[in-house]
């Protein structure tokens, strides 16, 4: 077994280095789906978070509690619910999103949106009271005030978006249920729904360890890049120079 593992790693590295078409197709589709879902979610979630932060309304505390609970929404549950909505008899059946990359993007957005909204609210709440007062005193309209606050919390909000991306790319349950792990036609990446996580799951069950390990290493690589990026943002070092110039 030890030999098989070592052999699996060697073959996996060969697959990556030789840019094996299947590995490349799966990786590219994974990045397209997760980057799109995170980007679309961020466009909705940051303003939504800012809106919730800036307005007092009945049940605000409850809404924030629900959002925070959804951080831990099981991905298979999200997949199941969305499946019911997207199936032919379901209310969103007309979209024809089931077993498509679009469907997977929607599924990941559902998982990521509460996370980015919640962390945006936290990021804005973390801003010093004196600064909030100062912005009002300087004559900002409510909208201008929120824009300034988002600018001031930009590092924390960017970190929230990156965390969202991490959740999107690493989840397997919803991608499997909504996407169906369909292999793409050669030359048409978007015809398939096989992403890193679902492929690893399949190849492992089929005993194709080298391919599973190769895909796993890529996923790990993405995770490392994300983590390093997050650390740099949190220490502010990534932007420090350009802000000082």
């Amino acid at each position: 077994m030890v030999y098989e593992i070592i052999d699996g790693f060697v073959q996996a590295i060969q697959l990556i280095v030789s840019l094996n078409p299947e590995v490349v197709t799966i990786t590219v589709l994974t990045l397209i789906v997760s980057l799109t879902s995170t980007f679309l979610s961020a466009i909705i979630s940051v303003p939504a978070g800012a809106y919730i932060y800036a307005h007092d309304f009945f049940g605000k505390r409850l809404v924030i509690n629900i959002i925070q609970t959804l951080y831990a929404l099981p991905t298979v549950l999200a997949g199941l619910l969305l499946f019911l909505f997207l199936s032919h008899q379901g209310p969103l059946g007309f979209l024809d999103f089931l077993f498509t990359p679009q469907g997977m993007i929607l599924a990941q957005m559902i998982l990521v949106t509460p996370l980015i909204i919640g962390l945006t609210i936290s990021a804005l709440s973390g801003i010093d009271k004196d600064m909030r007062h100062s912005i009002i005193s300087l004559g900002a309209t409510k909208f201008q005030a929120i824009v300034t606050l988002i600018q001031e919390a930009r590092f924390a909000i960017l970190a929230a978006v990156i965390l969202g991306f991490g959740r999107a790319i690493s989840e397997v349950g919803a991608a499997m249920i909504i996407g169906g792990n369909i292999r793409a036609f050669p030359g048409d990446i978007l015809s398939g729904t096989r992403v890193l996580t679902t492929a690893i799951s399949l190849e492992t069950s089929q005993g194709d360890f080298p391919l599973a390990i190769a895909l796993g290493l890529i996923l790990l690589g993405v995770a490392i890049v994300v983590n390093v990026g997050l650390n740099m943002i949190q220490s502010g070092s990534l932007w420090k120079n350009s802000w000082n110039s």
Partner: protein
Amino acid sequence: MSTSAIETHALLKKYDERDVIRDVSFSIRSGEIFGIIGPSGSGKSTLLRLLDLIEQPTGGRLTILGTDALVPDAKFLLRRRMALLSQKPVIFSRSVFDNIAIGMEYRKKVKSEISRAVTEALDAVGLAGYGKRSARTLSGGEAQRMALARAVVIDPEILFLDEPTTNLDPISAERIDDIIIRLNREKEMTVVISTHDMIQGQHLADRIGVIMDGALPQVGTTKEIFHQPTTTNIARFVGVKNMYSGVITENHGGEAIVDVAGIHIAAVTPFHPQTKVTLLFRPEDVTLHMEQSVKTSARNVFSGIIKKMIPSGPFVDVIVDCGIDLTALVTIQSSEDLGLARGVKCWVSFKATAIHVIEEQ
């Protein structure tokens, strides 16, 4: 123009059930420098935030620049005619130039106007050439001057300053004080400054309001506040060290004699005999001499023994036991010249007119 810039009537602010500002009624004249002095935690910052319309009062009336400021629609426009500098400078994560420009950007001023005004403001606060630097790299004094530039670049009619120099070294503090005086004189800006530093209050303000436990028990000229405080609490806060309870024994046309623990002190007051009063006078109004024969017009002359000497900066508080403890303020130099020391016999004198007499409640 002597119209009111700000008028408050029975202003009230509660946090939860606690009154942080209670029953505050006063007015600030257009173009004056108005000081708000009071101990830490007395409500100075809260009062400034209410006047700057950042916080909503719980009750009372507030008129600013002739407009009822508590009408929701009026607030935003009034706010744009005022500015506040907080005790701890707020620094936005951007360049010094962009920090100063932020208020003008909110007002949608054109780029060329912003550029001209900000450059001018940088110059005025002594930060010329700092525009491109990240604001986060400034020292405490520089950051406070940047925040001042940001507040005044929008040409406010009323400028609020919340203990602007508390955290600064004396030189930076003096620079800020100078800028404030210049803005007031040249632009006729109404300035409202809170401070717990009596000397700054005295140095800058035309009139002063004393805030204690959220209430404003006295408003007056600096002379009135420092020499004629209306309560013993205010007296203690403004540095009146000689405070004695006594009873008026006689009064001839306002020239009264007050019995303080068996010692007779002459004071000027309209109160009738048998009134229980408190006598207040400042240590700098007490003169110390080594011989009885020194000629003085003061009606109160007592001999005593020096009990304690407390140095404070270039001065020393000399406490003399004359049956009651009297405090005199002398310079360190004259203390040395006179050979003052604990146990030395000396004479103290003070004028009847230097004593402020208040009736005991």
